[in-house]
């Protein structure tokens, strides 16, 4: 039970999930290296939760192979896969106190009462819930329930921890703190974490590997920097945020980061615009002051929605107003081509 698993990698080979005729997950290939923090990111209904549940063994795999630590585990029951799942609603047993909740899996294996309660107490200490061991779940706050759920998942020393939207039920302040704590915990115990989320900022902050999903397919699986700087498709560029997708252009669809765009009045193009710049003319639709930066939205013929993020001082050096005709410019080096 205590053995260290050398290999806690997870690999999906042409894995599909069908609900009747609906393909929730459509033949995806994914390799999650051992000991990495992987975020499955996408809008609701993109298949990320189905994928997680298939890895957990709570959903059958319609087609393809799932490997954990190099072994195919398609038909292995959840507890024997070396995975543990933390449920979205935490799913703590309401009739058991924290200690018994954490000790549940040990009890199922026939570990003696004293031994399992001692181990559960120790695990509760690691998630800073030692003082609440005798409380019932209903007497705990959301953040405390989550810590108990985490302890319950970790007590079996899983090779892979699966987290289903673990932070979505928390208030923003607690969410940031738990996020840091999850990352710290993952580094400490060094096992693979697979974390489902619909929040791109959460995925960016946590992940070694971001898997962006849409319509049951993987759009892109890369490091956060790679995903942000080189989104593969228009969907990824839009979902990850901070990008403008220009679709109607002779050069094909491309993305440009909103903070790499400069503005000038259409009547008097600025001298700073070098020949290797790309320019487009448009009308300012809205302007928001955000302190350090000013956010503008332009109406361009080539894009449905075009955002510009300007440094506050730079904006007020040459301010523009809503309704002004402006020239948006960016370096050709900042143009990022999109597939499809």
């Amino acid at each position, binding site marked *: 039970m205590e053995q260290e698993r050398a290999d806690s990698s997870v690999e999906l080979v042409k894995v599909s999930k069908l609900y009747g005729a609906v393909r929730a997950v459509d033949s995806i290939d994914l390799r999650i290296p051992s000991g990495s923090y992987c975020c499955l990111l996408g809008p609701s209904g993109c298949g990320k939760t189905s994928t997680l549940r298939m890895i957990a063994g709570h959903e059958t795999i319609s087609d393809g192979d799932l490997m954990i630590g190099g072994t195919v585990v398609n038909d292995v029951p*959840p507890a024997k896969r070396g995975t543990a799942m933390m449920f979205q609603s935490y799913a703590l047993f309401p009739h058991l106190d924290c200690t018994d909740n954490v000790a549940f899996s040990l009890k*199922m294996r026939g570990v003696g009462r004293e031994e399992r309660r001692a181990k559960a107490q120790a695990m509760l200490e690691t998630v800073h819930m030692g003082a609440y061991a005798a409380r019932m779940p209903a007497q705990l706050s959301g953040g405390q329930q989550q810590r108990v759920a985490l302890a319950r998942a970790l007590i*079996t020393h899983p090779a892979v921890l699966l987290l289903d939207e673990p932070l979505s039920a928390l208030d923003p302040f607690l969410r940031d703190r738990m996020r840091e704590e999850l990352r710290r915990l993952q580094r400490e115990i060094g096992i693979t974490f697979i974390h489902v989320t619909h929040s791109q900022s959460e995925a960016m902050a946590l992940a070694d590997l971001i898997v962006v999903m849409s319509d049951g397919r993987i759009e892109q699986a890369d490091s956060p920097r790679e995903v942000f700087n080189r989104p593969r498709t228009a969907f990824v560029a839009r979902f990850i945020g901070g990008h403008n997708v220009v679709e109607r252009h002779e050069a094909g669809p491309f993305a440009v980061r909103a903070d790499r765009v400069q503005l000038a009045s259409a009547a008097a193009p600025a001298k700073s615009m070098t020949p290797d710049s790309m320019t487009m003319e448009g009308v300012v639709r809205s302007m928001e002051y955000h302190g350090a930066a000013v956010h503008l939205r332009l109406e361009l013929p080539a894009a449905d929605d075009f955002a510009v993020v300007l440094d506050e001082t730079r904006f007020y050096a040459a301010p523009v107003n809503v309704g002004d005709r402006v020239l948006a410019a960016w370096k050709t080096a900042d143009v990022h081509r999109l597939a499809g």
Partner: protein
Amino acid sequence: MTATADTAAAPAAKPAARRRRGGTGWWVSWLQVAPLAVILTVFLVLPIAAIVTVSFWDYDSVRIIPDFVLTNYEELFGSTVTWRIYLNTLKYVALTWTLTLLIGFTVAWFLAFHVRSVTWQMVLFLVCTIPFWTSNIIRMISWIPFLGRNGLLNSSLLSMGVIDAPLEFLLFSDFSVVLAYVHLYTLFMVVPIFNTMMRIDRSLVEAARDAGANGFQILTSVILPLTKPGIAIGSIFVVTQVMGDFITVRLMSGGQSASVGLMMANEISLLQYPAAAANAVILLLVVLLMVAAMLRVVDIRKEL
């Protein structure tokens, strides 16, 4: 309006409000509790008060005599018949409770956890309730031609050669009484247990499976403890029904067995109202004690 104006107005407003409440409003709350109070008084307090009063009256073979005597209770507790009948009734309660609980829990568990579609759940649930569209007595009597000495079951078994002589225990026996009770009251177990089970978060079952629990462990460690309130409510229904029953015992035992209810019915038919009243008071106390004991074990407040 400024803050100073508010504080200045407050002391003036307070006595006015108090005057309004004390002046015209005092009877409104009385009026609001009146309907329930009247119904409870007329249909619960008065009948029980009447029974308690009559239980201390005297009687002879033709009339009842207003009095204050303890003879009814003395005769009740002094007679071995009473004790035997109470024991017999408790035996019926124990058997019926065990069987209805086993069957009811299994049916509810199947409906709640193994029937996946809500439509099928509703259809099967309705199927369970359809027998209740006929009266209790008809459902009981319909057992008689089936179980009788020359009934359907015996004649089938005889013609198949399974038995040589008709089985005598089938009808007019404890077997038939308990069978009828189980038939009549299992649904009262199914419904509350099913309701409680439907409220169990399905992710708890998954969490248990994730922790390595097998089907039996999930049942005993998660579903059973969380279903206790439903079991308690169903048990209260079944126990109180069987404790007070007399018609099932009369019909299905063919007069060879007795229950507390039947004892009272006999006393009433002999016009021994005070004796029946004393019996009723004791039965009421016993049933209340049983219900109280069940509520001590299980907290059902969340279910109400």
